């Protein structure tokens, strides 16, 4: 098998070249993480809530088939048309077929990472359909022809100035304008027209409830509701892991989701959809796309608990300094680095290594996914499969030889220190030692601890 190239490292390096921008990105996300901390600290029962959420999800995953069937039955009873998609292509085709049936050519879409994962937009655009993302951040990156860089704040990598320039170009706002209120107003007028003309609305699903056959969509802008209420057809697309058993479980997740995501007590709009309004049609598309494969793997099953709050990204010191695009996948950051190799192991082999395994992600995760431990496990899987960079492979085999043989280790240590003492510039030469591009090597001591210890013993005993 070929080996993957370290794309993340290269992308990160490019991102880091503008240090001022990196600092701004880092601080902006840290600000969100701090808001999350304050919101969490305001609930003394926070850790219990996390535990409950984790257990509810674990239970739902252990009987996922039952709950999905129950969801389907109840949704049908409510008058929702239910579809099943094994993969991204099937999902996109289902959406297209519904559109064709209704001769729809204009759709409005609220934020859905699943449709990103399935690359729905490019697929529909190729069929001549107008797809408008109605979440403000999503619309911004759509106009820029970029993927989202964050699952909750898709345009967090952009400054007001960028948005001003973009809107000037596409929406005719004044050149150089960067007042958020003015820009938001322009976006609102632009989106209003799109909402009114749309034939069909697509939304994501945050939680689907097996017991009731309904589902919940959370947005801060109300755009999902506006789209779904105005269009005569509403398609809701969900990954199969989004099902929870009962309505009474919802409160646990709604309390955790917004606090973890942005530090808000609750998302501004948590809309419950249960049945189509008179004269309207409602579809629910249930998508697998690798999820059952993940479910079958005890090591990685936990990652299906994810409620896509984005907290792991905001806290991740690597994400904060490399930006979402460095991860070259729909879902960036720590959780994305676990999900992506499940979709394509070779393409995303670099991502589980784009982490220091500091463990902060695991601690903020509202559903207690053992994120950094799963990254570690992925590394083992990738190492076994032979898809890591050759340099790593060679280096590690060398270390194995060295450290399993104490005499060789002693010799190499002495030789290494001697080399560094004799040729100090060599160790600090950036072309030979990447460490030395921005950092200096330690000054090598005369003697190792071991040599000192042996000498001491000789002194006292001899």
């Amino acid at each position, binding site marked *: 098998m070929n080996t993957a190239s*370290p794309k993340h*490292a290269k992308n*990160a*390096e490019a991102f*880091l070249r503008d*240090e001022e921008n*990196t600092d701004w990105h880092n601080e902006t996300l*840290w600000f969100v993480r701090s808001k999350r901390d304050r919101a*969490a600290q305001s*609930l003394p029962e*926070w*850790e219990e809530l996390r535990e409950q959420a984790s257990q509810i999800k674990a239970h739902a995953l252990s009987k996922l088939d039952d709950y999905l069937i129950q969801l389907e039955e109840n949704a049908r009873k409510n008058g929702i048309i239910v579809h099943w998609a094994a993969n991204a292509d099937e999902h996109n085709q289902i959406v297209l077929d519904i559109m064709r049936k209704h001769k729809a050519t204009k759709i409005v879409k609220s934020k859905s990472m699943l449709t990103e994962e399935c690359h729905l937009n490019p697929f529909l655009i190729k069929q001549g359909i107008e797809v408008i993302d109605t979440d403000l951040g999503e619309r911004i990156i759509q106009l820029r022809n970029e993927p989202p860089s964050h699952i909750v704040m898709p345009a967090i990598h952009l400054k007001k100035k960028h948005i001003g320039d973009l809107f000037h170009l596409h929406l005719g706002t004044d050149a150089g304008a960067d007042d958020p209120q003015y820009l938001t107003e322009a976006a609102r007028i632009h989106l209003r027209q799109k909402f009114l003309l749309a034939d069909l609305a697509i939304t994501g699903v945050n939680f689907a409830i097996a017991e009731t056959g309904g589902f919940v969509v959370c947005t801060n802008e109300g755009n999902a509701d506006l789209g779904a209420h105005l269009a005569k057809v509403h398609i809701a697309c969900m990954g199969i892991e989004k099902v929870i058993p009962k309505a009474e479980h919802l409160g646990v997740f709604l309390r955790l989701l917004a606090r973890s995501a942005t530090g808000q007590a609750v998302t501004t709009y948590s809309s419950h959809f249960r049945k189509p309004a008179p004269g309207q049609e409602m579809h629910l598309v249930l998508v697998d796309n690798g999820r059952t494969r993940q479910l079958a793997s005890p090591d990685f099953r936990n990652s299906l608990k994810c409620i896509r709050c984005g907290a792991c990204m905001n806290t991740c*010191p*690597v994400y904060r*300094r*490399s930006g979402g695009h460095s991860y070259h996948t729909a879902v960036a950051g720590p959780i994305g680095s676990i999900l992506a190799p499940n979709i394509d192991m070779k393409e995303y082999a670099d991502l589980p*290594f*784009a*982490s*220091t*395994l*500091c463990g*902060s992600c695991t*601690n903020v995760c509202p559903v207690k996914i053992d994120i950094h431990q799963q990254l*570690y496990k992925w590394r*083992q*899987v*990738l*190492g076994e499969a032979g898809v890591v*960079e050759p*340099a*790593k492979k060679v280096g*590690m*085999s060398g*270390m*194995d030889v*060295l*450290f*399993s*043989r*104490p005499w060789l*280790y002693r010799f190499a*240590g002495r030789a290494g220190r001697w080399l560094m003492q004799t040729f100090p510039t060599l160790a600090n030469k950036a072309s030979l030692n990447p*460490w030395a*591009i*921005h*950092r*200096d*090597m*330690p000054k*090598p*001591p005369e*003697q*190792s*601890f*071991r*040599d*000192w*210890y*042996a000498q001491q013993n000789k002194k006292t005993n001899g």
Partner: protein
Amino acid sequence: MNVGLFIPCYVDQFYPNVGIATLRLLESLDVKVIFPMEQTCCGQPMANSGFQRLSAGCDKNFIQNFADCDVVVGPSGSCVLHLKEHLHSSEQPEEAARLRGNVYELCEFLTDVLKVDALPKARFPHRVGLHTSCHGQRGLGLSSMSELVAPKFSKPEHLLRLVDGLDLVPLTHPDECCGFGGTFCVFEEALSSKMGKDRVNDHLRHGAEVITGGDMSCLMQLEGVLRRQKSSVRVMHIAEILTSGN
């Protein structure tokens, strides 16, 4: 109690003074310490790079060396964490399990086992920044974590507060990663360096004269940045501070 001193390979080679300070500190607390001479590495570099299976030789060597010890103590949170989680042997599974349960990071050994509440001789009249290493803190639970809603505590801080004259500086990010991350520091060089730089700046902004911690690997990363900046701020392992004045 037969205490085996575990000095990780990079401490052995680059920071012998940390090994010496650890040994002296334990001896000053009346602990009888032996240092098995044939020890090498805990195996973490391979395991973290996705080659845990290549650490079998390391594991075997470790088990051989420390078989006679009741407990093993090492001045490195990340190596100790690796041993606690991954030390493995198909030939001697019981011995591996016993050692996994009896390996301690230096600070946790001092606070939890020896219950050190005073260090009468320790004196270090400087402004000190404590770098809380991730593996020590989140992995071994050496201190409370800013992400969790839980009571605050810190084992290394408890020990540093026993040192006469030491002024512990507050930090804006008390538990941010330094960016070392094993081979991450080489394969993600640009990111790792930036993280190191940011970590150092937090300490400098608060007027630290010395940066300390329980993991020499993190401190090596911070030292690398400081030296490049030609800064007069030094790094010292916590064992060196706890034995200063002796």
